[in-house]
């Protein structure tokens, strides 16, 4: 661990000012960040403790949604009765991730900002364009079991590892961000994380000095909510593939199909064409196959992760069948 100064954030503006320096990083739960400090994957000069900021509440919004403060623990979100009644898929996704001890410490904002678990990113003796721009990508010709099949670039094939954000993308939640000079902005979760392109070191759209203050869930919608996470061991493993779905039917017709996918890309994957295809249609295996065709149209494997392509198809079809009541 490289020695650093530890500062305490004295209000949001102060936190933003401190974090405007690119060698300064905020810390909340630290469940991912502290590991990366020890490994010297992260080597900030200054770390700002933002836990004193008043961002720890869950409040209902005027339009019937829910605002979850950036410092609310994952456990607190998962056990919140409003979440469990109206957005149960969010609680399920959180409980599908990490362990009880980690969820007790991990926060809403930190969870969104967690970094990839790519083996090459976390090993400073290996090349990684995300960690060290220009050093190359060890995974493309190396061990790529965990890695992305959608939206990759020649520079990076890492995945975003989380579960919560996948569901937030399906629910079309919004990220509330505080910026310099008391400015604020709102970014849809679907646009918060980015694809690696030629700047894989940028995980998301946060600029230096910006702090996540909350995540807002839109008003609850009718329909079945499913989060299906596929992994070889049944807990404490990142998704090989995960599917978050909110599906509603009117008689035999699909009226809502909000879907997002984990384990496939550098971001929670949301493809609006899938809802366009499904809504208004009668569910059938053929239709589900078409949805999978759309999802995986441009999928590309890197050897060891080729299996994710058929696995994503099968998992998507199984989730759609479950949510629409079709017997596959």
């Amino acid at each position, binding site marked *: *661990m*490289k*020695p650093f100064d530890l500062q305490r954030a004295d209000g949001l503006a102060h936190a933003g000012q401190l974090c405007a320096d690119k060698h300064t990083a905020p810390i909340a739960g630290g469940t991912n960040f502290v590991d990366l400090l*020890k490994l*010297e994957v992260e080597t900030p000069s200054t770390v700002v403790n933002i836990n004193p900021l008043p961002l720890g509440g869950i409040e209902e919004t005027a339009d019937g949604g829910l605002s979850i403060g950036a410092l609310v623990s994952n456990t607190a979100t998962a056990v919140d009765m409003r979440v469990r009644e109206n957005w149960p898929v969010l609680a399920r996704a959180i409980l599908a991730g990490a362990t009880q001890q980690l969820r007790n410490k991990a926060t809403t904002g930190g969870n969104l900002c967690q970094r990839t*678990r790519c*083996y*090459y990113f976390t*090993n*400073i*003796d*290996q090349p990684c364009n995300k960690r060290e721009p220009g050093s190359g990508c*060890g995974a493309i*010709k*190396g*061990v790529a*079991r*965990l890695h992305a099949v959608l939206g990759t670039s020649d520079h990076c094939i890492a995945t975003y590892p989380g579960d919560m954000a996948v569901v937030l993308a399906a629910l079309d939640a919004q990220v509330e961000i505080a910026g310099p000079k008391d400015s604020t902005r709102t970014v849809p979760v679907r646009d918060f994380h980015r694809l690696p392109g030629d700047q894989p070191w940028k995980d998301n759209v946060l600029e230096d000095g910006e702090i996540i203050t909350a995540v807002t869930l839109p008003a609850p919608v009718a329909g079945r909510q499913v989060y299906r996470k*596929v*992994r*070889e*061991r*049944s*807990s*404490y*493993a990142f998704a*090989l*593939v995960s599917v978050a779905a909110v599906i509603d039917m009117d008689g035999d017709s699909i009226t809502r199909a909000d879907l997002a996918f984990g384990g496939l890309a550098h971001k929670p994957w949301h493809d609006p064409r899938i809802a366009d295809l499904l809504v208004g249609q009668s569910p059938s295996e053929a239709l589900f196959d078409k949805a999978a065709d759309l999802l995986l149209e441009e999928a590309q494997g890197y050897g060891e992760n080729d*299996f994710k392509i*058929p*696995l994503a198809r*099968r*998992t998507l*079809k*199984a989730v759609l069948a479950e949510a629409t009541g079709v017997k*596959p």
Partner: protein
Amino acid sequence: MNAYFKQDEPDTRNLLDTGKQGVIGKALSRPEGLAKVTGTAPYSAEYQIDGCLEGVLVTAPFARGRITAIDKKAALAMDGVIAVIDDPRMTTRPAQGTAAAAPEQGPGEVDYFGQPIALIVAETFEQARHAAKNLPFDYEADEIGSVPLDPESAPRETDDGSSMSKGDLAHAMKTAPHTVDLRYRTHGHVSAAIEPHAAIAQWDGTKLTVHAAQQMPNYNIAELADITGLDEENVRLISRYVGGGFGSKLGVAEETAAAAIAAMQLSRPVRVVMSRQQVMQAIGHRSESRQRVRLAADSGGVLTGFGHEALVANLPGESFAEPVLQSSQFLYGGDNRLLKLEIARIHRSTAASVRAPGEAVGMPVLEAAMDVLAEEIGIDPVELRLKNIPEKDPDTGLPFTEHGLARCLKEGAEAFGWDSGPRQPRLKRDGDWWIGTGVASAARVHNVAEAKARVTLNPDGTASVQTDMTDIGTGTYAILSQIAGEMLGLPPEKVLVQLGDTDFPRGPGSGGSWGAASIGSAVLVACEELRGSLAEKAGVNSDELDIADGMLNGQPVSDLLGGKELSALGHYEPGKIADDYTSSGFGAFFAEVRVNRHTGEVRVSRMLGAFAFGRVLNAKTARSQCIGGLVWSIGTALTEALLFDPNDGHIANADLAEYHVPVHRDIPALDVLMLEKKDAAASAIQAKGIGELGMCGGAGAIANAIYNASGARIFEFPMTPDKVLQAMEDN
């Protein structure tokens, strides 16, 4: 007093059964359990030693080459750094189990990615770790592509000791009505003990004292002496509590050697603890394997041909080759036999012993192949196994000591509710999950080793046992207090067991499942001597001794002792029994699994192991050993695999987040049947090894259950969802 017993014959006296205390075999909790769960049992790194410096190893970022220069000045300019040590005595690999000599030394020559090349010593751990990550050094790395990393294309040697040929297997395969010829692959494993490798070394100018996490101080003291150039009498090794070994702590590893050399150079205590990544990369792992199994059977299902071949890998110069075929030598009959073990020389980290070396991957493969044969013949797989249990060792012709395989298969099947009806896949489904069952045999060769222990009756009538034998979480403290308690007529809590200190008599060490039978026999021998003395003092014959709860024939033992202690050194050695018999623990595994028909995920829903390993010394710790073996079986079957980078051979998933041992949620209720039958030819206490048996074949039962559930016949362990999907018929 000294007592020596060399066992040439089966010992049918069953001396433990003559005890009146009634504690042997009982399900007693381990005496050190409370200290362990309350955090007060000190593990090697936890001793508080004044002025202790902290060392962190620096590792090589390339597969093969040499270090040409280290910028020590730059490191010494960093906060807190006291020394950069690259002494040529430093070791670059762990010593193999029972080596009793230094492993490869000289950190300047690099043979694998992640090899230690230097030690940074600093005032604090954080300072040392930071400097270790930032030490500037120059190196010449051999070009990628010129370094052999892939076992299949690397130069290979035949391990003659593990190979044999008898009759004509090729002919048997040609003429038998039923044959299978199958190729399998297994991946590398690590021990993943919770306690990382750690040592604190102290040097007083003459004598080196080291607290280190080791399994075999009796060999490790010689290794450490050889590494440092000291005489053994000037080395003391202490391993009182060891947080899991599983083979990874058999030999002195790089951290202990480095701590010792640093302490000697700096004349200050030095602690070195490996990071999880270092433990996984620089400590021995189980070799990956490629295996071929050929089985030929007559129309009744009796084997006429048996072939098992394997290719494993290790670094050049390492004597250890994963003994994949160890149980194949004697488990099943078949007159035409061929066993062949080859070893590829590659530059990945050291391959060494991980729990049940050999059987852990050889048995699941053999047992998976037996399932294919049973299907080919159309015979129940339990029946197939029962038909092929040989009368004598089919290789050597030696008789077996107590042989429990048939018993375990039959009683295990009964207890599990094995259905010997039709075995077609996909007969049972619950929603999205196919359900199926599978069976496999268990076998693990039994060894005993020379062992010494001192047993002392104290003037107050209590007793103590002293040996440098270790308890690596297995229950040594418990069982030795029971053996001594039974023989000396004391409740176990009146027997103080002191382990893991080379100032005590040499035990056998914990490894190869031989610890309990060997050291237990030494304690028995010492106690027998003490009983003789007590009988003399009491004026009775030894066989008239009635001794329990500290009373001998109605008189307190403390009175007989007359204020003096009575002490005996017990020395046990296996004699001709080791040459005259083939001895093995046996068992049978039964598993029920659920296979998701969409995703290929596999979850074990039920598992039972029936085991026969001679006498049960402690029903609780023995059962725990078996349960641990079943858990490892599940990991071997479903999740555990080292992922080696194809370009530099480093282990990509070198932490517990990405190397997937099973979690609690993966483990269903596990049943263990211990089918006790005393084995007089196994040891003086009629007990056999048990620490590894529980995983010798279990993964095969799960593989067979996966097929029975889903129709996916898979030829690679672990059977992760991608492989299940690939093998499912409708995919």
